[in-house]
């Protein structure tokens, strides 16, 4: 039986940063109460160009749901001002699904009896060739959270293979120390995404009963460690619906804002994965996130941080994904296969983490973007350290 640590306690080999960002974020979000606002408050925030943290809170409120159309108009305007009609495309590639955590909501949970596997270097290269043949130039590599089965050197090797085929390499892997991020950066990766899942430390402890992920502060400081490891951009996200989604969204955005203020050159990205509501369950669970609330969260964030990247998840249906592009989202995955080794004709080696709702190919998504008079963008980044 492995030792269960307290969720606020650092485990062995976890680097502790000399930073008070967590205290700052918790302090600025502790009095969040979205139920105190009225429609009038919402309308007055929608008159503003630059939103403060408290303005952002207003847009996350239930009262703002009745102003969704107005919000959409403003959000669309900001989206076009900052990004024009550009839509960045990327493909995720799962290279391993081994995991040492026991997140109660996740398909990769180490107690879940699924088919486990990790791709070797040759298989990784084959997958990457298959993806790059579609025209894709940005890849997001993902692993389950197992530092033993997919150690940093393994990921670094995968990154250096990816460098041959892609101009932009992002990572969604377990949180690690600054030196590890540095190694991955030197191998060619530039963007790191870590989802906090929830910023409510009590719920966090309940949902993450064991494993390295149980450590709330280590996960919280992952983006800052990645920046210190010279990563160029960092991504954030909460699993909407796991806890109070409004408060989680609020805290994630404040986290992103304060980090951007501390490291102004850092590119900021936000993702919006949600737990889908159960059928016949709508009245009982206040944490349910329907498309209305999901869109509200996304647009509120667009207005709060108009310069940040917003990724629209492949968990959502195609009709939703296409329609949020002109309103707020700037980045979309295409040609997605979330199984291990799913991009080549060989048989898939390992099971997927979740089911996707938008199985369209790159070409189909490319055309869907053009049909909205928007512009698919395949490359938006030059890794100058490789020149």
């Amino acid at each position, binding site marked *: 039986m492995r030792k269960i640590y307290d969720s606020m306690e650092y485990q062995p080999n976890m680097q502790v940063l000399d930073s008070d960002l967590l205290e700052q974020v918790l302090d600025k979000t502790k009095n969040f109460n979205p139920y105190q606002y009225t429609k009038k408050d919402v309308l007055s925030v929608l008159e503003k160009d630059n939103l403060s943290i408290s303005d952002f809170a207003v847009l996350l409120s239930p009262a703002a749901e009745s102003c969704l159309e107005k919000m959409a108009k403003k959000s669309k*305007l900001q989206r*076009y*001002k*900052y*990004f*024009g*009609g*550009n839509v960045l495309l990327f493909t995720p590639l799962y290279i391993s699904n081994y995991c040492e955590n026991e997140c109660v909501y996740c398909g990769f949970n180490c107690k879940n009896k699924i088919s486990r596997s990790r791709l070797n270097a040759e298989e990784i290269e084959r997958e990457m060739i298959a993806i790059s043949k579609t*025209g894709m*130039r940005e890849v997001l590599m993902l692993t389950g959270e197992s530092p033993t089965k997919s150690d940093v050197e393994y990921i670094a090797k995968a990154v250096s293979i990816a460098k041959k085929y892609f*101009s932009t390499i992002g990572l969604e892997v377990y949180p690690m120390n600054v030196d590890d991020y540095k190694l991955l950066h030197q191998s060619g990766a530039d963007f790191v995404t870590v989802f906090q899942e929830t910023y409510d430390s009590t719920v966090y402890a309940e949902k993450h009963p064991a494993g390295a992920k149980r450590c709330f502060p280590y996960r919280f400081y992952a983006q800052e460690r990645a920046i210190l490891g010279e990563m160029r951009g960092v991504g954030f996200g909460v699993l909407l619906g796991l806890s109070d989604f409004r408060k989680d969204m609020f805290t994630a955005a404040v986290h992103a804002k304060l980090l*951007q203020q501390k490291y*102004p*050159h*850092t*590119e*900021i990205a936000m993702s919006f994965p949600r737990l889908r509501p159960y059928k016949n369950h709508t009245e009982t669970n206040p944490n349910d996130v329907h498309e209305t609330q999901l869109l509200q969260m996304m647009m509120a964030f667009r207005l709060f*941080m108009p*310069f940040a990247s917003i990724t629209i998840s492949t968990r959502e249906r195609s009709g939703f994904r296409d329609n949020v592009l002109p309103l707020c989202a700037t980045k979309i995955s295409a040609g997605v296969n979330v199984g291990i080794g799913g991009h080549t004709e060989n048989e898939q080696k390992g099971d997927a983490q979740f089911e996707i709702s938008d199985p369209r190919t790159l070409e189909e998504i*490319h055309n869907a973007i*053009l049909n909205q*008079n*928007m*512009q*698919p*963008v*395949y*490359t*938006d*980044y*030059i890794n*100058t350290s490789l*020149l």
Partner: protein
Amino acid sequence: MNFITNNNDPLILDGHTFNSRFILGSGKFSLKLIQTVMEYGGSEIATIALRRANADSPENILDFIPKNITLLPNTSGARNAEEAVRIARLSRELGCGDFVKIEVIHDSKYLLPDNEETIKATKILAKEGFIVLPYMYPDLISARKLVDAGAAAVMPLGAPIGSNRGLLTKDFIKILIEEIPLPIIVDAGIGSPSQACEAMELGASAVMANTAIATADDCASMAKAFRLAIEAGRTAYLAKLGRVLDKGAEASSPLTGFLQD
């Protein structure tokens, strides 16, 4: 009487002459619109973000820019002088020519330029034979250093990129126009033709715009409106403005008419 026309009043950048004083940013368009917009705008120079110009991706922006247009590749994405220099060299290797617009930005929120690093990059690239047009915050001292560094023009911002807020830095741009012996090209922040016209009236040598046109309902017509406004502003500048409230009223009878010997 000789009227001022485009043909006898060219924009000259390091010996290269252009009849149009409207530089079009290509970053926020659907690629298929670029050619039409350039035609309506009469532009002869287009900026492109080199980071978007990937030769082997399904759509390459370079294929959508008409061949008679001079490319002004920018170094967007560079966070310091060294990165800007590398991107500029890559641009030359990719066959994008010798023009380069230096953009060094170390702030992901406001996208304001880092003048100090911009000066460093300008110095290095000018020595390597690039025609360097640095994007900068309108500061006279920095502008002078850019002249010494070998810039071919100076591109001060009117307002933050994409803000469409117009000439917020007007008084400082005026100072540059008065003091700097290079063409002053107002870049960033210009949101409407009237603002472009105003910049030209002040004596700017050219205007660069992107968001204002890309976010219009009818991009091509808006490009045309910008062209006309820029021509109007330029003509007004050369015609020398008469009484403008801004400059204070001029008395119709001489104030010194009392002098006798």
